[in-house]
Structure formats: C-alpha cells, structure tokens
C-alpha cells in the first residue's frame, strides 16, 4: 500500500503541489490525468525521490520508502543509446549489485539471466544484444519498462510513457505496464494525456488540477465525461 498524506511542493513563489493525499493498493494501476503544468511530473518525481517534497509524508506499508522500492519509467525512455538493451535493463539492478560490477561491466550471471527474462516478458525476445539507439520508439519504451521491473520495486511510476508513440504502439506499451502491475502485484501510477487510452487500462483515476487532487476514484465509478472535463477545463 502506497500512502501519500498532505504532500506539498513549492518552488520559490509558485506552488506545484498542494495538500495531495491518496492511497494506492498493490496490483492496481492508477492513471494520473491532468493538463500540462498541473503537477503530474512533480508528483511522480516527489514520489520517486528525485525531488524533495516541501512537506508531507510518503509511506510504503508502514515505512518510508527506500530509493530502490520505487521505479520510474521516463517519458522518452531515458535510456543510454550506446548500450545494448540488456545493459540498459541491468542498470535497473544498480541498487543491488556492487559498484565494481557496473564499473567493469561484469554482471552476475543471475542478474543477466533475470534481465533477459525481463526483456522476454515485455516482448523483446532475441533483442538483448541490440543497441538501444537502433530500436523503435515502442521497443525503447519497453526496454525502459524492463529496466524499471529489473529494479524489483514495489511501486512503478511512469511519466507519460506513451507521449511520443503512435496509438497502436502506445496501447501495446500500456498493456505491458498494466500486465506487469497485475502480475508482479506492485503499485502502478501512470500519467497520461490520452483519456481514451486510459479507459482501457485504468483501475483507478487520480486527477490533478493546478497542483490539487480533484479526483480520486475507482475507474468503475468514473464517468468518461469527468476525465474529458479535466482536459477541457
């Protein structure tokens, strides 16, 4: 269970997040909607620990989360183009493996096997050796997901993971994310700009407007009109 209580983030004079509180359960994929500048990225970065919230509490179960507990899938993958798909996925395990293994590129066989498995799980069988720079947008994003899974987190966050993909590929990437959240029984929180895509995978909706949480409800109880309104204002 991921619990967020009274989260606030202020930059100098601007307030990016204001008193945001919610709870998410394992195996549940929550879709975070909101217009550009509503605070979605800030919320995800605060949860991930890339930014420090000004006030508020984040708990995983009863404890504050460790850095390795929460994985973030970035907008365009944020992968290293010159490395192979496998090496990028192995980077997800940096929190576990000793530093010298990364320095010399000498990963433990068990780690490598696990990383190959993660690639197979996102449908990239046989692509472990390929340079990430040579992959298509959809494939890259799935390498990003595999890297997040390889972190063995309890929470997977994704910041507009399909923003630059065509509808069919976007659907495919989201399906992968949804499948893995359910299979691994982790908490999933994904920000999206496409309400129709969201409807196909969402278990729960969170909506942000100007840094405030204006909707927090199971997908079954949410009228699609409500989501459309978030974007239309």
């Amino acid at each position, binding site marked *: 269970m991921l619990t967020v209580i009274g989260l606030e983030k202020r930059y100098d004079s601007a307030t990016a997040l204001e008193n945001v509180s919610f709870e998410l359960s394992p195996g549940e994929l929550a879709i975070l909607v909101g217009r550009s500048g509503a605070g979605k990225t800030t919320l995800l970065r605060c949860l991930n620990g890339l930014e420090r919230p000004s006030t508020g509490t984040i708990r995983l179960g009863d404890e504050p989360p460790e850095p390795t507990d929460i994985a973030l899938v970035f907008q365009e993958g944020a992968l290293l183009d010159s490395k192979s798909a*496998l090496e990028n996925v192995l980077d997800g395990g940096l929190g576990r493996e000793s530093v010298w293994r990364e320095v010399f590129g*000498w990963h433990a*066989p068990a780690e*490598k*096997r696990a990383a*190959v*498995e993660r690639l*197979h*799980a*996102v*449908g*990239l*069988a*046989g692509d*472990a*050796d390929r340079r990430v720079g*040579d*992959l*298509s947008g*959809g*494939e890259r994003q*799935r390498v990003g997901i595999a890297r997040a899974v390889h972190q063995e987190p309890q929470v997977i966050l994704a910041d507009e993971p399909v923003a630059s993909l*065509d509808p*069919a*590929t976007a659907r*495919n990437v989201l*399906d*992968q994310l*949804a*499948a*893995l959240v359910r299979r691994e029984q982790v908490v999933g929180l994904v920000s999206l700009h496409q309400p129709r895509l969201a409807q196909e995978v969402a278990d729960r909706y969170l909506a942000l407007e100007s840094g405030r949480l204006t909707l927090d409800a199971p997908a079954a109880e949410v009228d699609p009109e409500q989501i459309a309104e978030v974007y239309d204002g």
Partner: protein
Amino acid sequence: MGESGSDGRSESAVDPVDRKPGSGLRSDADAAREEAITVDGEFDRIQRRWRRRLLGRVAVVVSLLAVVLATARWMGFDLAYLYAHRDNLRDVLVEEMLAPAQLWAQLQGDAPTLVPATLETLAIAGVGTAIGLPFAVCFGLLAASNVTPRVVHAPVRLFLGGVRAVPSMVYALLFVILAGLGPVAGALAIAMGTIGDLGRLFADEMEEIDATPVEAVASSGGGLVATTAAARVPQVATAYVAWVLFYLEINARKSAVLGIVGAGGIGYPLIMAFNARNYTRVMAAIVAILVLVVSVELVANRVRDALDADRRSTQ
C-alpha cells in the same frame, strides 16, 4: 530495422504477456521466431558472447602493456639508473632551485628582464590567438561534414591535419627566417598552431550539433550561409568561446618556450639560465611562467563565468 517493421513485431510481441486474442498484425514468421528464442537460449548465447568479449579485452590490455614495456626498454628506460642518479636532481632542486632566500633575491635581481619578457610572452599568446582565430573559424566551418560537401570538407580536414603535424617550435624557427628574431615570429607560430588545433576542434564540435533545427531553417528557404548563421552557429557558440579561452591558456604556456629558438618571450632568459647552469635563475623564470599561466587561467575562468551568468539571465 525500419520503423514499420519493428512496430509490427512489437505488436505481435505483446501476445505472450497479456494473452490478448486477435492481434491481426502478427505474422507466422514473427511468431515462429519469437517462440524459437527461449530465455535460457538467449542467456547462454549472451554469456558466450560476453565471455568472448571479456577474453578479447583482457588480451588487448595485456598486449598493450607488453608493447609499452618493450618500447620503454628499447628507449633505454632504466629505473635502476634513475634511482642511482637521484641525488643529482635532488641537489639541484633543494640547493639551488627551491632555496627560498636565494630564489627571492634572484627574482628581485632579475625582475627588470623577467617582467618585460613575461609581458612579451603574454603579447605573443594574445596576438597569436587573435590572428589564428578567424582562420580557425573559417577552416573549422569548412571542415565540418554537416556544413560543406565532401569535396570541400575532406581536403580542408587534410590541410588542417597537415598544419597540426608541424610543432610550434618548428613554425617558430621558420618564421624567424621571415620576421627575424623576436616576438613577431613567435606570434605567427602561435597563430599557426591555433589554426590547426582550433580549426579541428571547431569542426568536430560542429559535427555534433542537432540536425533538426538546421532542417527547420533550411525548409523555410534559407541557403547554406543563412542556415549556418541561423541554426548551426548558435548551437556551437558557447562551446567555441570555451575552446578559445582554453586555447588562450594553452598558447600562454606554448609562448613561454618559443624564446628557446629566438622567437621572443620568457623562453630566452630561461634557456640562457639553463645553458649557464644557473638553476636559481632557471627557477626564477619558471616562477614568472607560473604566474603568467595561472593569471591567464584565472582571467579566462572569470570571463567564462561572466558569459555563463549573462546567458542565463537572458534566457
């Protein structure tokens, strides 16, 4: 693999995971390929490949080490000899070069020659960089493969390589024939070095730029010069300024030794002191060089910081 091909495959690849029926994009060949690759099979293949690669790397490192050791031996590198003669260097260092009172007296006595010589060195570096810079910019742009066609950039690159192949000392000797003994020959030598080195660095930097904004400007109808001014130069301007300042530092250091061949600056008193085996005087000249180089570096850093601050405030 093309965009459409890979996306077709990625569509088919979803099936094993979420068991969604009816993925019409899946071809039989793709399906067969997917099923043929097992996790164990791929892992074994990668393990074998990584082991081969590791062996290859170890072999390269070992042979490089062997080559270096063999070459050092061939040169006559002999640690025992160096160790046996360690006292020679120690005596010179401790008794003549690094004796504070002696050095201070020498500095005061030599100030009338050292100060003008240091200023002359600075002038050689500054004027030489200034003369070389416009040529470096022109040749740098011409040598970039994303600015000019191959018939232009290939020969210009070759020319820059040739210019770079000649050491500054040799240029200085040549320009002494043209300009006579003195700092003019030094400044010309520094200019040549600047053209060769900075031209190459400018070209390399230019080749790293993002092509998209260039295409955007070109699609609005701009020619080569217009697109270069509007979309290429703005992408490299900051880096170019940083390189120029860095080169000013390097040139200050280079100018300090050109006097050895009569091309002006502090190198002349330095070599005279060496020839006279007056190591305290040598050290005094080294101190002057140190002050010069560090001052240039400090000023260059200040300029860089000021430019950074300026850029940030206008953004």
